[in-house]
């Protein structure tokens, strides 16, 4: 590598890669070169102040910011009139430092082949938004995941409970920036809680209710230290010391 070129590169290490002049011919188009997004214009026309902001990132990705209290209205319109029938992704971002948590909807329209990202900003003291479960069933588990990981409550979701973490997890919401990497409790406390889990802790309230109605005990779940396993250090079927 030539020395001069290298020094330029070393300086660049601190700034990170930008679109360099060497790559100009094949570089991704910048915001100004792109045709405006047809749906964004239609949204502006239909909702007016309902579109707070419009951004273009990474060359061709359009983001629309909408007020969280109108999310169902705007997304419903997008699904029915805008023909965004495919909910690609639903997630959230916590930037930390007490800033608002963003709920992100990534939409794709199979008939018109258009992408659109919709964001709602929720202040930390009011982490509540309407559920899109009845627009796209795909939102079911993704909303549960956002609830589990960020603590955002989706109003109207029929089955909002933790999905990746255990139902009785008490340490908070792991993907929040104020959540330490190893959790809030000490290792000893975490182990103690894991070992003292009961059969009921492995079932959702719905299942407990079913079992109650059916009047039968819950089936055993084979988990470490849980019921259904022989006691430690004891070989099943071999009675030691038994005559």
């Amino acid at each position, binding site marked *: 590598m030539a020395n001069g070129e290298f020094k330029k590169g070393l300086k660049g*290490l601190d700034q990170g890669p930008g679109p360099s002049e060497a790559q100009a011919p094949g570089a991704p188009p910048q915001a100004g070169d792109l045709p405006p997004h047809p749906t964004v214009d239609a949204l502006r026309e239909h909702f007016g102040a309902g579109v707070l902001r419009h951004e273009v990132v990474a060359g061709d990705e359009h983001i629309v910011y909408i007020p969280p209290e109108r999310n169902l209205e705007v997304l419903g319109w997008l699904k029915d009139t805008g023909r965004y029938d495919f909910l*690609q992704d639903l997630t959230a971002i916590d930037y930390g430092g007490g800033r608002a948590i963003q709920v992100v909807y990534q939409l794709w329209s*199979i008939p018109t082949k258009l992408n659109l990202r919709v964001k709602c900003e929720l202040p930390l003291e009011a982490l509540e938004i309407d559920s899109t479960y009845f627009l796209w069933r795909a939102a079911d588990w993704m909303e549960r995941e956002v609830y589990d990981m960020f603590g955002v409550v989706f109003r109207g979701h029929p089955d909002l409970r933790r999905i990746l973490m255990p139902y009785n997890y008490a340490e908070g919401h792991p993907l929040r920036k104020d959540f330490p990497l190893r959790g809030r409790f000490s290792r000893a406390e975490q182990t103690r809680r894991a070992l003292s889990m009961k059969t009921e802790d492995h079932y959702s309230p719905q299942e407990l209710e079913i079992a109650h109605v059916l009047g039968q005990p819950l089936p055993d779940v084979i988990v470490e230290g849980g019921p259904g396993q022989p006691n430690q250090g004891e070989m099943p079927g071999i009675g030691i010391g038994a005559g």
Partner: protein
Amino acid sequence: MALRRVVYNVTRSPELASGGSLVHAPIVPVQGEAREVHEDVAGEHMLINIGPQHPATHGVLRLVLELDGETVVRCIPHIGYLHSSFEKLGEYRDWNQIVPLTDRMDYLAPLIYNCAYAMAVEKMMGIQVTERCKVVRVMCMELDRIFSHLLWLGTTAIDLGAFTVFLYTFQQRELIYDLHESLTGARITTSSTRIGGMMADLPAGWVEQLSKWMEGFIPVLDEVETLLTNNAIWIGRTQGVGVISGEDAVNFGLSGPNLRASGVDYDVRKDRPYYDYDQYDFVVPVGEHGDIYDRYMCRMEEMRQSIRILRQAIERLPGGPINIDDPRVILPTKTAAMNDMESMIHHFKVVMEGVRAPVGESWFSVESSKGELGMYVVSDGGPKPVRWRVRGPSFINIAALPHMIEGALLSDVIAVNASLDIVLGEIDR
């Protein structure tokens, strides 16, 4: 003992024509015929638990089923037994250090995950990889599509009682493991991409090894098809089972072969082409019934199409460097780092501080073997991501499982679950 009349709803057509020939399913259908059964046996619902440790759940998936006799009334899946919070871990690692996390998610198609992640970060940074790198990544992704579909085929067949297929497909998978090993040094956890290129260029003789494997693979695939495609038991267990309509499939967010089997023609390679996929000559198979058999047919055809893409990729593989010439993201060569002071500083800075990304974000998706794999990366200008999110296709696909099996039989639960081609490493992340 009290008797009660129960109408069984097992509907299976005896005329399951496939390839023009009439096939008789071995299971005689009992269509709407009433039988008298003992009430205390049939009238009660039962709650049973499958998993998390069960060979047919393809990982640590746990299903709680409410059964009426053998019919599933309700299915409640539980996930999270393999949760290792990869997304949180990613926030504590710099951009290149995340690559090993990606292949531990889907260990059945690790190269696709490596490539998808690198592509998302490169898109956010505005980096264009070299032509050679593009073709090499296309080869990697198509190879792993076959790799993953072979595992799906073998394990699904074994779940439905066809043992031989498993031996054929796993023999072929071994050969792909060898290709992985000579390309990346590892068999499963490949970690082969870097921001701006690959860990290393193709080793000498790799393309020849790949061509040789492809020649031997097509006859094996044909042989496997003779074992299954017209097999009466296979047809009886798969046709008309686990049906989901195209409209529902879109609403549930299914993607990949599961969506296309329901007749919806959506493939990221065709609809949002990346890496010049629009210049390759291949077709995307689309089913019509949305049942397990159509998913099987879609995947079989996809493997053949992947071979076609691989052949074209070998033909067009250009020379030139594999990594971009940008010292801000790419490490200097080992020789330069050992002999040249400035290269050593450069090497040190890239390794210790990591590659810096500009402020921004990108949501980028590729067509993985299991469906649409989306990578969402958000940067605040530092060497580590603010958020790294994976839209796992298995996570979304498995969410539709209760919809497909409620009302079906218990034995179909295993078949439908297998047909969705899930990998728990990515569902639980």
